């Protein structure tokens, strides 16, 4: 286990992120939803606590918490008044090391997961983005954390115990702590609580293998929901920040290209966003826009055109604005222990180390408009994966094979 500590003595709070290599890529192929169901089950009683005790003790300590399962990791995140930190880490050591995994609660936990699947059915934005992720990264790395109703219903206690035994280990695990904390104290506490946690080798799948494809989901929705993606660079790649700056110029802020040229100048939509996303094995850019059917085709056409056109009229002032935005967010990160703990954990997973603020500042300062254009030409957007949901399918670039 890697233990990372960032003292922020000016705060009243502390936060941590505890991550283990029990993500989606460790799930057996047919067991969709297994990692998430286990993440729920380990929190239904652990160590000396019943399920209700756990909630009561965490509430009384003032712990704001959440958990999630990503492609690589299961993560337990918590922030709290600083005095509660040591007790909180002890509780989570019980959670990941001594869960009761109560068989009599399996059906309830499955029903909870199925409720979530039904809720997603009613959320068109989430539906298109989850499907797009599968198309972008391929069925193995792009699988969703939710599984399907059939796959969740089929899961057994034996599978949960097996997945727990195989994957809840110290190999590649991360404890990132930030806030009003004493690093020496955290180090001793981590040794006491996790020093004898068994180790293991994280299960890692191969490369993303999605292909250019177009899928339309028929629906009587008010809007046509448009999502598309293309290959990009993962966090940690030497040119990642040039790519990130390019996507920032496209989508960060009210003067960004997509917001300005799709929404502000043409009034085509209310929401349009583009984001960089990274796995350990690869990266992609995901774009979403929601718009009524009569404006949908133009929205897709203009969005793709603006993305492909980026290097042709890039103005250095656009890069300058993005740099000010990054500078502000780096400084304001100092106001939040939760935000710092989470970015440390993410750095450790992707890079194997934590980047200092000054290192990031130096990289940002070194980015030039020419560098962004060169990178965009080296890896031009294309081979789009496209998902739409709405009344009618759209015309898409010719290299996308159509499925419905």
């Amino acid at each position, binding site marked *: 286990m890697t233990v990372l500590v960032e003292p922020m003595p000016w705060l009243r709070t502390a936060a941590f992120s505890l991550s283990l290599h029990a993500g989606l890529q460790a799930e057996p192929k047919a067991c969709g939803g297994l990692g998430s169901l286990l993440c729920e089950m380990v929190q239904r009683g652990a160590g000396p606590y019943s399920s209700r005790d756990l909630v009561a003790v965490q*509430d009384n300590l003032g712990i704001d918490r959440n958990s999630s399962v990503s492609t690589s990791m299961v993560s337990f995140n918590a922030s709290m008044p600083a005095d509660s930190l040591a007790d909180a880490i002890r509780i989570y050591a019980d959670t990941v090391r001594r869960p009761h995994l109560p068989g009599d609660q399996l059906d*309830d936990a499955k029903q909870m997961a199925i409720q979530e699947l039904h809720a997603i059915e009613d959320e068109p934005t989430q539906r298109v983005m989850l499907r797009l992720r599968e198309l972008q990264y391929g069925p193995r790395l792009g699988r969703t954390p939710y599984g399907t109703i059939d796959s969740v219903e089929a899961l057994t206690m034996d599978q949960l115990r097996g997945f727990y035994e195989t994957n809840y280990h110290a190999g590649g695990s991360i404890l990132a702590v930030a806030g009003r904390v004493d690093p020496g104290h955290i180090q001793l506490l981590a040794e006491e609580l996790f020093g004898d946690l068994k180790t293991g080798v994280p299960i890692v799948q191969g490369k993303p293998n999605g292909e250019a494809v177009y899928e339309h989901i028929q629906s*009587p929705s008010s809007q046509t929901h448009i999502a598309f993606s293309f290959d990009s660079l993962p966090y940690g790649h030497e040119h990642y920040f040039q790519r990130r700056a390019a996507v920032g110029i496209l989508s960060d*802020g*009210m003067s960004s290209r997509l917001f300005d040229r799709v929404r502000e100048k043409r*009034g085509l939509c209310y929401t349009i966003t583009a984001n960089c996303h990274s796995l350990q094995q690869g990266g992609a850019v995901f774009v979403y826009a929601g718009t009524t059917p009569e404006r949908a085709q133009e929205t897709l056409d203009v969005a793709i055109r603006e993305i492909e056109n980026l290097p042709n009229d890039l103005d250095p002032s656009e890069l300058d*604005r993005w740099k000010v935005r990054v500078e*502000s967010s780096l400084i304001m990160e100092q106001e939040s222990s939760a935000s710092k703990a989470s970015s440390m954990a993410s750095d450790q997973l992707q890079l194997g180390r934590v980047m200092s603020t000054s290192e990031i500042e130096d990289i940002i300062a070194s980015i030039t408009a020419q560098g962004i254009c060169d990178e965009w030409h080296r890896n031009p957007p294309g081979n789009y994966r496209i998902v739409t949901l709405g009344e009618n399918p759209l015309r898409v670039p010719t290299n996308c094979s159509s499925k419905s």
Partner: protein
Amino acid sequence: MPEFRAVTLPSGLRIAAEVDRRGYSAAIGYFVHTGGRDEVDIESGASHFLEHMMFKGSAKRSAADVNRELDELGGQSNAYTSEEQTVYYATVLPKFQDRAVELLSDILSPALDEHEFNTERNVILEEIAKYEDQPPFGAFERAMEVYFGPRGVGRRVLGTAESIQAMTVDVMRDYFNRRYRPERIVLAATGNVDFDALVEMAEQHTQTWATRPSTSPLPPDQSDTLPDGIAIDPILDVPDASQTYLIRVSPGPSANSDDRYATRIMSTVVADEGGSRLFWELIDTGRAEVATMWPQEFSDTGAMFSYLACAPEDLASNRKLMDDVLQLSKEKGFERDEVQQAINKTVAGYIMQSERPSNSLFGLGSRWLYRNEYVSLDERLDRYRRLDENDLHRVAEKYITTDATEVLAAPVSEPSESTLT
């Protein structure tokens, strides 16, 4: 400790700030006492549409200038409109304070250019369509309309597609001149703020606000008609919905009521999303996706909302379980431990939120806008810490009821599974 400062300019514009010079950022916002409840039918949606138009240019800036300059400040800037206030805000590094105040002050005298107005109309129509696609598919707005009536507090903030299609620049300009007067506006700031510079900049850049032409109020709407695009049917048909969404509304405390703190904690014990009575009965067991209740406070009125989302076939059994939990809370009251747990959770939440100036801005601005009242964090925490199980039982008896206004969003094409009982 943060220091509270306040001043009223000769124009009537009020300025209030909670200053903590140790902070990394400054949050600054204009709070305008206007929203959906201040509109008549032909203005339906004008407050929110106008909020968008503030970013579309002033006498000295084009729309592109406004967006570009906001981005040049880094940080976060945005705006929102509710039933009774419209807020424009920016969170910036302290070095950008003066520029942020000048820019926000300038955009609040909008050009209201006809071409920009017509383009933005489409964006508003898209925003309305977007919410129509999101659960619970307009059922909250419908519940407000049915409970409060489709005007006043119950008027939908975005307006309707019909009212937005019909909106004209002239109607909007009159609305602006009537509502955006300095005596109805508060400039609030939190965090690392230079208060004297804030006052000086505001004074300098809001001089013309007091000279806006006055317009007389429009005649009231005919209360025996429905505004265009409004229906008050308590059942919304969502043919392809996978779940059923039930919303109930009944009287609750206003933002002025002494009951509000106890009612918030009571709602936490009964109905919050993790560890409440409803959570253990309906969520932890996988019976429902959502089962919750909360007080919605307005300046002079309030409502208790409850919300249940589940499979259509489980609606009847889940609503019975929900009613039983609510009724038991009303009749038998609460245990000391669960009350303490909810207070500890709430107090810790406030302490954590207070670390970012942007989180403190909205409470500060709203309280000063409506009540000229400042309540420090410690004072707010004390008000929660003083509560006990008797206080919660009293408000449960007063506000919990199963005799509520109901709205259901459901696939009514399958009537046997989605009728109201």
